[in-house]
């Protein structure tokens, strides 16, 4: 098993654990952090493929993922703040009566 395959396994593990965390955890902030973990797994696979093929296009995609992650956090955190102001809890099950 060479280096690239090991790194791909690591990225798979990161992505799957992030997905599992988003599905099973109840704390909204922990769910956001698990999304970050998923993005990190994708980034690791992109860098691995870039390293394997010797092309710089993967770096561009990683950079775009960075920007998207930052924008996502900048939007999601104020939403979480507003939700907590409504009901004083971070439990997402408490907000299941939201309609939209």
């Amino acid at each position, binding site marked *: 098993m*060479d280096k690239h395959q090991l790194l791909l396994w690591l990225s798979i593990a990161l992505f799957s654990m992030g997905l599992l965390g988003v599905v*099973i955890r109840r704390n909204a*902030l922990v769910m956001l952090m698990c999304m970050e973990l998923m993005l*990190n797994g994708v980034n690791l696979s992109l860098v*691995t493929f870039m390293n394997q093929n010797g092309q710089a296009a993967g770096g561009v995609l990683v950079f775009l993922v960075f920007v998207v992650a930052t924008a996502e956090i900048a*939007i999601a955190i*104020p939403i979480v703040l507003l939700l907590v102001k409504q009901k004083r809890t971070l439990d997402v099950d408490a907000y299941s009566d939201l309609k939209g």
Partner: protein
Amino acid sequence: MLVLREPMRVALALITTMMSLGAIYGFMGVHFIAAFQVLIYVGAVMVFMVFVIMLLEVREAPGNKRYSNLLVPGGVIFAMMLGVLGISVWRAVGSGSTTAPAISDAFGLTQFSTVFLRDYWLQFELTTVLLVAAIVAALAVIKVHRRASGEKANG
């Protein structure tokens, strides 16, 4: 991260993961991505996250359930996803592992910038649009916040 109760411990675990990933990127020779990883993720996103965790400080009820009702379906999805991705990686790397070793010159900042601004300029511009949209949305959220608190104070 899946079993820790406190959000702050989850945040510290995630910071450790991100710094380790930055170290991996550094060892792979993509130094600018390692720098971005540490600067943007650990320096901006996670500091913001830790800030919010300390700002909110919402205590969970002691007898609260740790996991949602989707624990079993989530576990099934996790296993299926791990299987599908694992099989694809096994096949792909098993067949194509004889590629030429990458040239370390390909990961310099010069080539990155050239490719970025020559071939991917459209995505770059779309990124600016996304950032403007994010700023506008954050301002709108803040305004809703102010209006709600103002009404509460008045009435």
